[in-house]
């Protein structure tokens, strides 16, 4: 038997910031001459795994063995022949593409016009077999993401890699160009007896171009299959296994009364729904298929591209979030530190933005009344930390709990939650779902936007699936199974 080109042995990584184990003793072999597709839901650990492989992330345990040699922390992956093209290659807006190509390449001390011309010549020659037409004098700002991705890929080939890793190389590519890229790397791997690992969310692509397909789930490789052994349907069920739905921890929510008022409604948009008080609507899609943008559009953070939005009988199309909040909107954003909080402020300052008016006495905001308010919130919601502590010192789960408490304390008419369970462990999720249910029982209309479809079965009364940017199907939760949902998300059914 031929030894594998690369062997991953027990790679493990737990993020200290939130305690999530993104990779849990992953063992995998990559053979010379093969194309390996890496599939998995968001948060399954794919990017962490390739980061560990390419040396951008240091593992807590485990090792990478390349052609029989164990790589140590002093080895630079690229020097050893492992090349990674990130989904969004980091770039400097000021530097030209040819300058990006030699960044970190210590052979160059000084570059005269002649050396530069030779370099560009070399790069152009390298790009030709890929069919890339690149202007190497464009700056990073002018080049755009596609040219950057291509320039990064071309530049890596100057280093004669043995293993090429592509993180979602086709996410932004139109069909024919994606085909061209994947067929080119596949040919290269066969010819040079090297290997390619590519991450994708597009199952047909994996079936067509990969020699083997590895499926990741919760930080582990849950299956490795070959395309001729499997089918779209089977891959779909590997990605969304029905058995993983946890049992509901409380009674099902009663259906809303027939005369319950419609409090949140979209008309003429790409995802139309009517939401009554006390209902929980879950909307999901695969990444890039349309659910992410809803977070911005439904909360007034950016305008609706088409159609209108109604809240509590008002036409609120085009309203800014400040005004929507006055009508009773609360919103838990997916970006917790950038948008949902002020990370370097105290916990107490993070819970009072809607309360400062009430907490002030004769116009003065006194520290003890702010602290009392925080303490009260802390006791009722089981928050962590002290009022004077800075928010960033909390774990991801505890930050999320604080944001939830702050938003729910408003007793909102409409509550929008975007990716509320990202980075939460099971216990934290149980608390989260309990809070969402409690909110719905008090008559709040809840919209849950998530990229983890299974989560919808935990709490939602209605589930809608988006694919290709459009709402494909919206039904009561009881009429869905994880399998039917997965098929709609993959575009197999509608």
């Amino acid at each position: 038997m031929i030894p594998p080109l690369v062997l991953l042995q027990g790679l493990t990584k737990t993020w200290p910031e939130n305690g999530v184990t993104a990779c849990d003793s992953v063992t995998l072999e990559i053979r010379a001459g093969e194309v390996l597709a890496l599939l998995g839901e968001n948060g399954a650990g794919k990017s962490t795994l390739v980061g560990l492989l390419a040396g951008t992330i240091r593992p807590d345990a485990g090792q990478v063995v390349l052609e029989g040699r164990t790589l140590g922390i002093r080895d630079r992956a690229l020097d050893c022949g492992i090349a990674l093209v990130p989904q969004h290659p980091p770039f400097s807006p000021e530097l030209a593409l040819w300058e990006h190509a030699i960044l970190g390449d210590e052979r160059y001390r000084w570059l005269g016009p002649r050396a530069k011309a030779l370099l560009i010549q070399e790069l152009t020659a390298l790009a030709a077999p890929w069919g890339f037409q690149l202007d190497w004098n464009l700056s990073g700002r002018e080049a755009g993401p596609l040219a950057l991705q291509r320039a990064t890929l071309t530049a890596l080939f100057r280093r004669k890699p043995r293993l090429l890793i592509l993180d979602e190389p086709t996410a932004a590519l139109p069909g024919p160009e994606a085909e061209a890229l994947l067929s080119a790397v596949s040919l290269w791997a066969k010819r040079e007896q090297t290997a390619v690992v590519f991450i994708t969310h597009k199952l047909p692509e994996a079936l067509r171009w990969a020699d083997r397909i590895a499926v990741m789930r919760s930080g582990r490789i849950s299956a490795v299959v070959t395309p001729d052994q499997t089918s779209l349907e089977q891959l779909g069920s590997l990605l969304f296994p029905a058995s993983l739905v946890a049992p509901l921890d409380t009674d099902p929510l009663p259906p809303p009364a027939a005369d319950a008022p419609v409090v949140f409604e979209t008309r003429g948009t790409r995802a139309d729904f009517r939401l009554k008080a006390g209902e929980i609507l879950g909307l999901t899609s695969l990444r890039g298929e349309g659910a992410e943008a809803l977070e911005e559009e439904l909360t007034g953070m950016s305008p609706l591209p088409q159609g209108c939005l109604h809240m509590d009988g008002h036409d609120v199309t085009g309203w800014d979030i400040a005004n929507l909040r006055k009508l009773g909107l609360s919103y838990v954003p997916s970006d917790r530190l950038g948008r949902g909080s002020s990370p370097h402020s105290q916990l107490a300052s993070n819970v009072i933005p809607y309360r400062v008016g009430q907490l002030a006495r004769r116009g003065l905001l006194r520290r003890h009344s702010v602290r009392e308010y925080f303490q009260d919130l802390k006791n009722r919601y089981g928050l962590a930390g002290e009022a004077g502590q800075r928010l960033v010192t909390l774990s991801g789960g505890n930050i999320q709990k604080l944001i939830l408490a702050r938003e729910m304390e408003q007793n909102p008419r409409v509550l929008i939650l975007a990716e509320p369970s990202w980075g939460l462990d099971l216990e934290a999720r149980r608390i989260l779902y309990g809070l969402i249910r409690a909110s719905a029982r008090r008559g709040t209309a809840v919209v849950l936007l998530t990229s983890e479809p299974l989560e919808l079965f935990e709490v939602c009364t209605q589930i809608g699936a988006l694919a290709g940017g459009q709402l494909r199907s919206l039904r009561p939760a009881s009429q869905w199974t994880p399998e039917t949902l997965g098929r709609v998300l993959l575009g197999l059914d509608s």
Partner: protein
Amino acid sequence: MNRRTNPLASGIGTLVALGLALGLAVVLLAVLSPNPAGALRAFFWGPVSSGLAWGNLLNQALLLSLTGLAASLAFGAGAFNLGGEGQTYTGGLAALALTLVLPVAWGWGGILAALLAGVMAGALLGGLSGWLKVRFEADEMITTFLLSASAVPFVNAVMTGPGIGAAQSMLIQSRPAPEAFWIPGLLAPSNLHVGILVAVPIVVVFAVLVNHTPWGYRLRLMGRNRDFARYAGISTGIYALVPLGLSGGLHGLAGALGVLGTQHSLVQGFSAGWGWNGIAVALIARSNPWAVLPAAALLAFLDQAGRSVVLQGQFPFQLSALFQACILFFITARRLHGRPL
């Protein structure tokens, strides 16, 4: 909302930085001066050796408190006002121009009106940058700087122009304000005058406003995380415009007080450095209005001490600027700050 997680550690950090800078100053004096003992004495004793010295020290400290507070207000709200120099200068022009047309009989009323004109002029200049930011998302760091840079030659042209310019003078300056509108001096012949004392209550009022009111809370939230502020429903337009307007207004007040209290006419370059040093004060005070007064006092002391050494010890003229640079360097070195020393 305190920036400091550990006020003690941060306070010690500032003191250590101060000690390092003073130590460096002493070493420089000892090495460079032909008479080290005299130079040291001039440095530490000079600024407080007489009523005149005290008056100049206090006047400068209070002026810097105003411009430092102005810069702090903008910084605290996440808006960088680099136009303090021009706003101060314009404030001085507005105040002086008004005194030239007001009836002398107005007396103190005229002084108040002129000060208000200075505030308005500065506020308009600062508010314009705020408006440009809200309306066109123009970077206020650039617009305040450019507006200020163009305000200075404009004021220079006006101060010698028809109606305002002095008929016969060696200096480039305007006609003096009528004596009725001169703010009475203190500790004559120093630069100190009663008007500048208003800086203390102004700093206190803004310190309370910023640290202990809902308005100040929102302002600081803007400074900490603008995206969070918008998400939380705070009107980011108002909270971008108002701090820049206020900041400009306080700069304008400093300029008006300098003209009416000390110079009595508009002299080219009269506000030399007040606007820029206000930024230095805000940096030392870390945008906390309470810390503005000691920070301004420190900077004023260093400046006066430097002048005193130059006057008495045959010393390079740029020394005072060098000391200030040392202090700023040590105090703004965040690395030093971030760790408990």
